[in-house]
């Protein structure tokens, strides 16, 4: 069917802006050709999300007419998006994601917080929700507090897990009683019952029905943790998506109309394509890319209020998503300071600043989030804050993206004496292939080198890692596009969505000052050969353009590892980008910055200069 799709419109209805993109089949491949945007109109005075969508699509239409010099191009007919199966008329598919009105807000329950509770959280996050709270039998809060909490939260829906199939039912019953006693009301109005999904012990289903069927809109699905050793998150996630459409979205102004517009061809027929929660769509495209290219991917989206981290790791392509609800660059910027502390932020700043001045600057950014750093100093400070926000969001992600806890770990003979236990993080920076950053501070940094530096400093990639940024944050639209055409989604992802920054090479292990950390021989496509023994504590930038490949022989210093084991040489192909190849010998596990301010500032300036992060004047500050 994919060949028949010639023109697709995709929109992402955010809280403030509705972004539209046009994807066209040109010269045998799918490309994103035009983009537009308009303010979201879900709130007063317009109270109809489709108005913003029509405005954003009208902009696409006008730009398309200009681009092709053809006034007959039309995407809107009778104030609807025009879907037509005829050539050169309307579009072939319209799809959309949405995070307007605060996205999907959920509460989850489980018996043991670290086991079924965590699985329920993973299912909800994977479905694109913000998890407002996890209530578990063992979470140490007294029951009356839990009831109060459930009552005050007003989520869009509740996901209840608990117990393995056939196990004890008492605890699950108790949780259901708490939910029943709280009699929670949905966030978007009291005209309908709160949807509750039960995905726990199958033996307790009747008890749950007795307790909750009258008070809530109860939906029962397969246990998301049927045995301790494995999860079955799919059915619960699907139910979350169904309910998001049927209940949550249907309550939001204009969404019924929007849902009827979203259509595309599937198996030869024009069918409705569900509107996805924006983060679920981002997760979808990341999983699609990881599967098709057989790589491990880590993605981050740093916004004004929250930072989302997505990852696909291990050969089984396990997907995880976390939302750091209070780490962001405007609305939550002050919380980054509260979380990281002043010293952690200032360690990235190569000049002195008065504490009170910095505090006031951060707060002023919080209350006037749309302002832009005009002074270089302020840009450097904002980027320092971004590094810490990203670092903490990633720490939270690593703690969450773990193997299942509580099950038995199968050990082979080689691991018989190891201390490996269940519940270890599956995030492995050494095996990671691609790191993608998005969000204003990364996508719109004045120099791409700044984005590269922020990503490297906060995520500390190990071994060989490709780094890219999402040019205009079109991952959400591509995620939902993947539902009707994986080919279109992946082609656009590779060609138009990603801006390849380059590759980072970083040996891991405790580095020793003034010792060789990396011996590199890099054969560049123009015939030049870079050959150098790099001392510990440095950064080296080697320009290598987008689409170019360099052959590298990399030998880590004594006791260090570049991916093949300690002291083992690697021959690899390094991919270029708008920044190039970065050889980072500053150390990993641990990565430390000199405590002495004078030394640290000197080093920061040296690295920034080498990476051409800021204008020359910075280094005279």
């Amino acid at each position, binding site marked *: 069917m994919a060949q028949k799709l010639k023109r697709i419109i995709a929109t992402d209805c955010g*809280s*403030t802006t509705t972004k539209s993109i046009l994807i066209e089949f040109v010269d045998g491949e799918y490309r994103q050709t035009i983009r537009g945007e308009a303010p979201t109109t879900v*709130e007063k*005075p317009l109270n109809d999300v489709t108005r913003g969508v029509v405005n954003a699509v009208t902009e696409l239409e006008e730009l398309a007419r200009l681009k092709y010099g053809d006034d007959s191009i039309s995407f809107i007919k009778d104030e609807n998006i025009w879907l037509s199966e005829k050539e050169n008329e309307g579009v072939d598919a319209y799809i959309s994601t949405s995070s*307007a*009105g*605060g996205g999907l807000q959920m509460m989850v329950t489980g018996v043991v917080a670290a086991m079924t509770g965590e699985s329920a959280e993973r299912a909800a996050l994977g479905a694109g929700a913000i998890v407002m709270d996890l209530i578990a039998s063992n979470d140490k809060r007294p029951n*009356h507090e839990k*009831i*109060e909490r459930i009552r005050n939260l007003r989520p869009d829906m509740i996901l209840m897990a608990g117990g393995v199939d056939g196990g004890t*039912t*008492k605890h699950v*019953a*108790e949780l259901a*009683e*708490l939910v*029943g*006693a*709280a*009699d929670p*009301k949905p966030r978007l109005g*009291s005209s309908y019952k709160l949807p509750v999904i039960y995905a726990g012990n199958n033996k307790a289903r009747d*008890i749950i029905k007795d*307790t909750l069927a009258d008070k809530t809109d109860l939906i029962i699905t397969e246990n998301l943790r049927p045995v301790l050793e494995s999860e079955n998150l799919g059915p619960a996630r699907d139910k979350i998506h169904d309910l998001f459409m049927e209940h949550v979205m249907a309550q939001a102004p204009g969404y019924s109309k929007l849902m009827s517009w979203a259509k595309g061809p599937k198996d030869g027929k024009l069918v409705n394509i569900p509107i996805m929660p924006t983060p679920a769509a981002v997760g979808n495209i990341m999983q699609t890319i990881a599967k098709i290219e057989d790589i491990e991917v880590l993605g981050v989206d740093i916004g*004004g*209020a929250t930072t989302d981290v997505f990852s696909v790791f291990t050969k089984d392509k396990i997907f995880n998503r976390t939302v750091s609800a*209070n780490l962001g660059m*405007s*609305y*939550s910027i*002050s*919380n980054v*300071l*509260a*979380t990281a502390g002043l010293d952690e932020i200032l360690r990235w700043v190569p000049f002195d600043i008065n*504490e*009170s*001045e910095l*505090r*006031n*600057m*951060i*707060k*002023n950014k*919080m*209350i*006037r*989030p*749309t*302002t*832009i*750093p*005009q*002074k*270089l100093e*302020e*840009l450097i400070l904002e980027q320092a804050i971004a590094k810490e926000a990203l670092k903490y969001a990633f720490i939270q992600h690593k703690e969450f993206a773990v193997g299942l806890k509580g099950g038995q770990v199968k050990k082979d003979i080689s691991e018989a004496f190891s201390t490996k236990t269940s519940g270890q993080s599956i995030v492995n920076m050494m095996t990671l292939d691609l790191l993608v950053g998005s969000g204003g501070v990364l996508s719109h940094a*004045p*120099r791409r080198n700044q984005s590269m530096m922020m990503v490297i400093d906060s995520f500390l990639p190990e071994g060989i890692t490709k780094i890219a940024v999402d040019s205009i944050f079109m991952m959400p639209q591509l995620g939902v596009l993947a539902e009707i055409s994986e080919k279109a989604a992946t082609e656009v992802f590779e060609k138009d969505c990603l801006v390849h920054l380059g590759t980072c090479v970083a040996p891991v292990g405790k580095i020793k000052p003034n010792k060789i950390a990396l011996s590199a021989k890099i054969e560049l496509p123009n015939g030049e050969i870079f050959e150098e023994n790099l001392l510990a504590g440095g950064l080296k930038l080697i320009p290598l353009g987008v689409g170019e490949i360099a052959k590298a022989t990399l030998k880590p210093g004594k006791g260090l590892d570049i991916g093949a084991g300690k002291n083992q040489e690697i021959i690899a192909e390094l991919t270029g980008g708008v920044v190039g190849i970065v050889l980072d010998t500053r150390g990993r596990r641990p990565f430390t910055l000199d405590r002495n301010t004078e030394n640290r500032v000197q080093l920061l300036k040296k690295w920034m200069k080498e990476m051409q992060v800021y*204008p020359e004047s910075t280094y005279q500050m």
Partner: protein
Amino acid sequence: MAQAYSPGLKCTENIILKKDRILPIKGKVKVKKGDKVVASDVVAETLLPGKVIPFNLANKLGIAPNLLEKYLKVKAGDTLEKGQTLAQTNGFFGLFKTEIKSPIDGEIENISKITGQMLLREPRIPIQVKAFIDGIVVEVIEEEGVIIENQSAYIQGIFGIGGETTGEIKMLISSPEEEIKPNQIDESCKDKIVVCGSLVSFDVIKKCQKVGVAGIITGGIDDHDLKKLLGYNIGVAITGHEEIGLSIVVTEGFGKINMSHKGFELLKKFNGHKASIHGITQIRAGVMRPEIIIPIKMTDEAVEKKAEMATLEIGTTIRVIRQPNFGLIGKVTALPEKLTKVESETMVRILEAKLENGETITIPRANVEVIES
């Protein structure tokens, strides 16, 4: 055309204002359409369901949950008094009886045979919604609340703390640049809304708390002082729930920043008038800013101004809202269309302006706000 949109905070002498006064859950509306109300009037009230207290009866009796029914002295739905017997075992030959009594007044919500848990509910909690502003009830939303309308002088703040309060406006400054000292706060400030100048210090706020000031209006506040006052760092911009005995409305931002001339003149004009203020701030979708509402006499002339978009044009008065030149006022002299590189190398749409001090500046359009004339 050289024109662009740039939002500014409202500051106007005469506006028709409508306020929704809505209950959190359905209840009873106490006034009717056309009623005149004052800020302290209760316009709607309801009863919130009482707290639920789980009580593991089976455990306390030392029996299996499925046997609980046998010993119960009450049933679901019963009204309870504190000390009333909930359940009692027979004991041996009438001895060693175990009797469990209700720890609260209230009612029984549920008794579970599976977990042996009894859910007790405390009596309902009354909650009231007040008018907050003097005005007329123009609409009653059955069982939910009312919409109140009045004619007011109106100033939006940029940030605030503390909830709704009312009081008389008391000017403590004679110019917007002034910064007041703690000794300027005395008994005459009790229950008043005091207008301070460019910065309110921790010591001044403390003194205000001591004498019982209702509210503070200030140009700027130091974040360090705010932290000291609240005992914690404000992480995300959702405020208004702070209980510090008074409300603070900051009109300009953090640090020492002169109050806008227009805001200052307006407050000066209404010195001694009753005002309703709140510090409720929320900066994300559904933005909420603190407000200063000074009801004025209804006149026939007042017409509700349609929400107009403030536009940037040559000659528009603007205020700088970020460093450098934060807080300064000027007039737009040019609006170049092309993206321009500023010091931080960011490519932005800029404007040129002549500041009140005579200096000409180039600044990102995102870093100014329009001052409505």
